[in-house]
């Protein structure tokens, strides 16, 4: 029988605290815990980024992330996953997204963590506006 996965998904304007998040999914059965921390770059090309502004279709974003976690659990031997994404204004050097995956073994934790951030970027309805000193752009909106 397949084990249940423990998961935690949050979208919030508050800063993300790594240790608080680790506590939410930690378990003594795990031998590996892989983190992906997406931070805000201070430049895109040569333009200085002053801040990002994130927006989400919140209920759908949460359900899409949960679907991705279920997929990751079917594909890889993981025991828990946490995805926490910021909304609203996020400043350079702050964390925009945190993903934690735990597993009895490291290979599954690494690959599932990568799977979750890659798929989140492709399909979860969250949008990012980059604000520069001289303008702003919704990222990826135009060809």
């Amino acid at each position, binding site marked *: 029988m397949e084990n249940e996965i423990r998961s935690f998904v949050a979208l919030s304007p508050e800063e993300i605290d790594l240790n608080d998040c680790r506590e939410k999914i930690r378990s003594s059965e795990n031998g590996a815990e892989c983190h992906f921390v997406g931070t805000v770059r201070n430049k895109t090309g040569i333009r200085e980024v002053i801040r990002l502004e994130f927006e989400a279709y919140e209920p759908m974003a949460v359900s899409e992330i949960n679907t991705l976690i279920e997929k990751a659990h079917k594909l890889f031997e993981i025991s828990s996953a946490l995805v926490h994404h910021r909304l609203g204004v996020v400043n350079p050097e702050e964390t*925009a997204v945190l993903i934690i995956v735990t597993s009895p073994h490291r290979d599954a934790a690494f690959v599932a963590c990568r799977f979750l951030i890659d798929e989140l970027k492709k399909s979860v309805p969250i949008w990012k506006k980059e604000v520069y000193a001289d303008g702003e752009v919704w990222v990826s909106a135009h060809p």
Partner: protein
Amino acid sequence: MKILFFGITKEIVGRSELEWNGEIPENINSLRKILAEKYPAISGLKSIAFAVNERYANDDQRLDSKDVVAVIPPVSGG
């Protein structure tokens, strides 16, 4: 039917939602054409996806007056 707009489409349309009082388009593809005609800037975007009642929908999905349709410009989370 209610239509929700996000990101750049919210700026193009000038509002985050609208109540569709006219005839309900037959399917997503019909709605796609109506929106492109009404808001030409939408056609300049890389792509537009739709969700019906919080799930991604194909172009042939039929629409109902009770549906909540979301217009989804290219996502850029992470």
